[in-house]
């Protein structure tokens, strides 16, 4: 409850992108994701919010940081060291449980708010409902995606 009110208030106070930007939806129920606009606080995050493009793709520094984050949050536990899959799905081949994960906006939505198939939300405010300081910032999600895309294997 606390968390819903908190996020709702923030969402009203700081609408995230305005008309020009993309709108993000939850992979679980397709409902709009209320992410405070202030959280898109880097050039890459701002660019993503306006165009849906991940400018970190192919950026060696971002990929390196993305790898660290992938390990830090034990994504490796379910998805393997490179995202090749373990108890959770492979994230670097071309088969997806949610086809939208093939594009940058889709996979951002899935990481941010989770799925109905066992993947918990990883976005700040969504990961631990009563502690919005835990979880990834939008910028960090984009770096994780850059890391995963850099490992992609074509079949």
């Amino acid at each position: 409850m606390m968390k819903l009110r908190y996020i709702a208030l923030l969402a009203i106070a700081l609408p995230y992108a305005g008309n020009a930007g993309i709108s993000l939806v939850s992979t679980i129920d397709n409902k709009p994701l209320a992410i405070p606009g202030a959280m898109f606080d880097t050039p890459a995050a701002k660019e993503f919010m306006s165009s849906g493009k991940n400018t970190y793709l192919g950026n060696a520094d971002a990929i390196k940081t993305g790898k660290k984050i992938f390990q830090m949050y034990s994504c490796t536990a379910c998805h393997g060291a490179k995202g090749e899959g373990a108890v959770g799905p492979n994230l670097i081949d071309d088969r997806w449980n949610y086809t939208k994960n093939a594009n940058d906006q889709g996979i951002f939505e899935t990481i941010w708010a989770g799925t109905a198939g066992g993947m918990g939300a990883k976005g700040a405010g969504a990961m631990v409902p009563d502690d919005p300081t835990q979880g990834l910032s939008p910028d960090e999600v984009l770096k994780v995606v850059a890391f995963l895309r850099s490992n992609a294997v074509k079949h």
Partner: protein
Amino acid sequence: MKTTTLKLALAGVLGLSSLSSLAATELENLMKDDNQWAHPRKDYANTGYSRLSQINKGNVRNLKMAWSFATGVNRGHEGAPLVINDVMYVHTAFPNNVYALDLNDNQKIIWSYFPKQDPSIQALLCCDSVNRGLGYGDGKIFLQQNDGKLVALDAKTGTKIWDVQVVDTKKGASNTNAPHIIKDKVITGCSGGEYGVRCYISAYNIKDGSLAWRAYSTGPDSEMLIGDGFNKENPHYSSLSLYEDVNGGNKEGGSFKALTKDQLKFPEKELGTRTWLKPQAMQNGYEHGGGPTWGWYSFDPALNLMYYGTGNPGTWNPDVRPGDNKWSMTIFARDVDTGMARWGYQLTPHDEWDYDSMNEIVLWEAKGKKLATHFDRNGFGYTFDRTNGTLLVAEKMHPFVNWASKVDLKTGVPIKDPKFSTHQDYNAQGICPSALGVKDEQPSAYSPKTGKFYVPLNHVCMTYEPVESKYIAGQPWVGATLTMFAGPDGVMGGFMAWDGLKGKSVWYNKEKFSAWGGALVTSSDIVFYGTLDRWFKAVDAQTGKELWKFQVGSGIVGNAITYSHKGKQYVGVLSGIGGWAGVAMNLGLSNETDGLGAAGGYKELTKWNAAPGGGGMNVFSL
């Protein structure tokens, strides 16, 4: 906290003594009756041994499938059904359904039980959505659901009598073990070593599900139920530090040199907190110290001691938890009435490889001695004097074990090889065995007739790279990435007979894949076990020679059992590939390095199994 628990335990014992002894007698009689299979490993001693001998070496080749039962559930089917008074009780992988089958009426379903569990629980199960079976006692069937709920069902009707929440799934804990009925207690464990859970073992009163006692694997002595007389005969097991740092210890290039007995300081108290040296990843490392307890528990009625092992310390990154990390990786003997620890021996101090010690402890006698034997993930086969924990034998189960050269019997401390020490951001190569262990949960069997153990094995090595990771309650907290590959024999598994006194294998058969099914041995000297490429096998207990095999519908990770019905002997096993070895396949993975590294080596499993593996019970007779 401790006094309350003890008082409760005492009150429970006194109040229920007359009823409980009746319940215990009924179960103990069922265990002695070879027509039944009333306990997860048949008896308190965890032998997996039956005196049934109708199926013998002369006729075993004529075994035919008598009947089968598809469970309607996919993925890993570990454990085994119970058979009690002509009823077979079958459990399944998640969502842990239970069926009571009437052996007197063509296995018609008498009752069934369908737990309602949140599907998200499956994400907490590190190594497939397995459940290792049911317990029986006091007219009740006990189910330990994956979501932490322990349920008592009326064995005749399936009606729920009581239930209780054993672990907190919000903190990332879950359950996969079979509940074990010991006297008037239901003993159950805790999974969550990869989630920073501080695990414990719990004893509930069989009548009403009230908690009799609970013993943590880490933390203050009072919460671990460690008191006076603990490790009395082996005080050096209670040393503050077993190693000295070499080249800085917990960093790349560092390692650990075992101290000799005269260098050790003992006995010490409060080791469950004091062996988590500063700085830990978390303020008090023991508070997220793991020590899961999801194995097979044994019991000696004469000593009134139960035996079990604890698993890995959290996290897998050893550098951020300096110290021996007690009492993870430990075998405990506890008084089953009070939970108080009699002795405890840590097998892999300051674990660097995820070598859990939760594998079964089998109780046996030889040369007038009360013994206990344990085949550890770390690759050593141990034999103890079970009255006091004195270590008698610790030998490598296979020469490929390389992380330690030997175990010093004077101290009980493994001599680690610095070459295979693991450190943050350094990818250690060629470590044998892999985290799967030379043996994992698949239980061994012991025959008092041959005096030998029959042991299903993995033969897998690994690379292991500890990484920095962040603890967040309820989220995975792993801290290492690994890849696995076949060991030097060029295969991934094996099966052996073992002499527990000499610490030597008597015979050894290679297996193409991990032998991830539990063993059964009978008094006609036949050993039964299943394989991941779908074979259910009978081999000669003396020689290991294959006598019979039959191919079932999916790879076997269940334990073989035997019982008799209307004078006829049956053997049976659950099929349904999964568990750590099969999990990658169940998820449809195919890359070399898939599945905590397991899929690479196990890739060929997809040539032998449809995925996900379908669950079924397979029963054979002459």
